[in-house]
């Protein structure tokens, strides 16, 4: 049975300046899976994420962690943040220390763990993310991608159950994008983590995500597996998003060039399979 580790029920959030950022969002984050929240700029992804660890208290609606409604008391939030870790979009706003090691140790130390355990966790997190060689480097000498990794390690060292990442691929080069996504996938599998990412990088969704929600103007407009979501072509386009490039190509081949595919393909391997099937059918 797939358990929902986080549930969001009819969540509303209005900022002090009157911006109604979330207008009744309902979604489930499934245990041990990677969930993507897709949406254009200003769709409400970041507001949603800040509600997941209790930074923002919803104006209406509720958030449940493991079936229990969030407790917004000091102690409740402290406990919640041990379990739900957020990696922010700009690593420069997250890394406060000039020392990589010290920054990563911040979370575990706040959890009041003994020093031995902190050291163990910091080293394990650095190993896992592949940044052990950066231990003695000052933060300001790192590249953007390296800073991003340090930021992830800083959250991972707290050993959360849910890892929430706001735009993990924004600002990375193509190699960096696939490296970080593969890394996240591996961590998720190895540790049984539940991962939530927000992105408008469409092409990574069918490759690395198990489930996807599409947001627009503070609402969820689509949900399902990536395949299901990208089958709704018109809705996807109406919210300033697009199909994965491969999906778009396959759509053109099907509609304009009379190819026949039994199912939608959104990744290179899916497309290859579909085209091979088509070739086989044609020759027989």
């Amino acid at each position, binding site marked *: 049975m797939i358990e929902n580790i986080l549930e969001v029920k009819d969540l509303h959030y209005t900022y002090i300046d009157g911006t109604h950022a979330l207008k009744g969002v309902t979604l489930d984050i499934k245990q041990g899976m990677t969930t993507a929240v897709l949406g254009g700029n200003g769709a409400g992804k970041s507001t949603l994420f800040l509600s997941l660890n209790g930074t923002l208290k919803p104006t209406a609606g509720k958030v449940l962690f493991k079936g229990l409604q969030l407790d917004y008391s000091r102690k409740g939030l402290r406990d919640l943040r041990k379990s739900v870790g957020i990696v922010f979009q700009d690593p420069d706003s997250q890394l406060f220390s000039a020392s990589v090691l*010290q920054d990563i140790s*911040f979370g575990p130390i706040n959890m009041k763990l003994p020093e031995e355990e*902190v050291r163990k966790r910091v080293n394990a997190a650095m190993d896992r993310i592949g940044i052990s060689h950066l231990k003695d480097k*000052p933060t*300001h*000498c790192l590249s953007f991608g390296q800073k991003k990794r340090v930021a992830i390690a800083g*959250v991972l060292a*707290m050993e959360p159950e849910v890892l929430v990442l706001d735009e993990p691929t924004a600002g990375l080069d193509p190699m960096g994008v696939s490296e970080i996504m593969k890394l996240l996938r591996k961590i998720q599998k190895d540790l049984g983590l539940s991962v939530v990412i927000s992105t408008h990088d469409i092409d990574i969704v069918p490759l690395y995500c198990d489930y996807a929600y599409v947001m627009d103007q503070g609402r969820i407009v689509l949900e399902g597996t990536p395949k299901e979501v990208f089958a709704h072509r018109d809705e996807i386009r109406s919210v300033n998003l697009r199909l994965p490039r491969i999906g778009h190509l396959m759509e053109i081949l099907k509609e304009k060039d009379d190819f026949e595919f039994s199912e939608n393909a959104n990744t290179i391997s899916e497309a290859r399979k579909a085209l091979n099937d088509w070739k086989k059918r044609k020759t027989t």
Partner: protein
Amino acid sequence: MISIDKYAYSSKLKHTDPLQKVTFALLTLAVCLWADNLIISVAVIFIMGGMTVSGGGTPLRFYIKLLLLPVSFLIIGVSTVAVNISEQPESLLAAIPVAGIWIGVSNEGLQEAIKLFFKALGAVSCLYFLSLSTPMVDLLAALRRLRMPKLLVELMGLVYRFIFVLLETADTIYNAQNCRMGYSSLTAGYRSLGSLISMLFIKSYKRSDELYTALEARGYEGELNVLEETYEKHWKGYVLAVTINVILVLSSIALKQV
């Protein structure tokens, strides 16, 4: 300033206990100021320079350039000591008459000025030793161990971390303005600089807000507690610091009696 930071991180002395380096630098600084002797000052410059260049691996050229930085200030400073006013030109080595009195350099004034010059340079070399061998992070750790108020150390750490972010932001804004002719004339330059500064304030405020949220997400409760680097405990550094300074003190006493 940024290159000092870089050399500090690549110094061969980086991994020695920062407290030892602080002790050494401050002790020698105190002795240099107390001795008030030309030979001792020059000796301190050589000891500290040697420690930094051969011990720490800072390139000699860079080190000399750095030492020359305060020289211009020093020359202006000590020249006021060297220059005297006198009514008898005989007491001055060289002098020019101005409205009935003589302005010039006396023998004692000159000696005093040279002594002061090297004393100041000696003190500077002590601080250079510390800043070229000890990255800020280690220095802050040492200050924490010396029981400096936590708030102050945290603030210093944040300032240090975000100086680089601020510089980067300023640089980006400056380039963007420059590309659009923002500095093509004096008035345009002032206007652009004004908006650059106000933009920096706004961006810094926004960033501090984001930082706070991010820290809170990792359980921030008012204190930036982090893991401290551990250093091997050995007395070699302290022994060396004390020995060198005892020698300096003894020789300065000996020099005074000559």
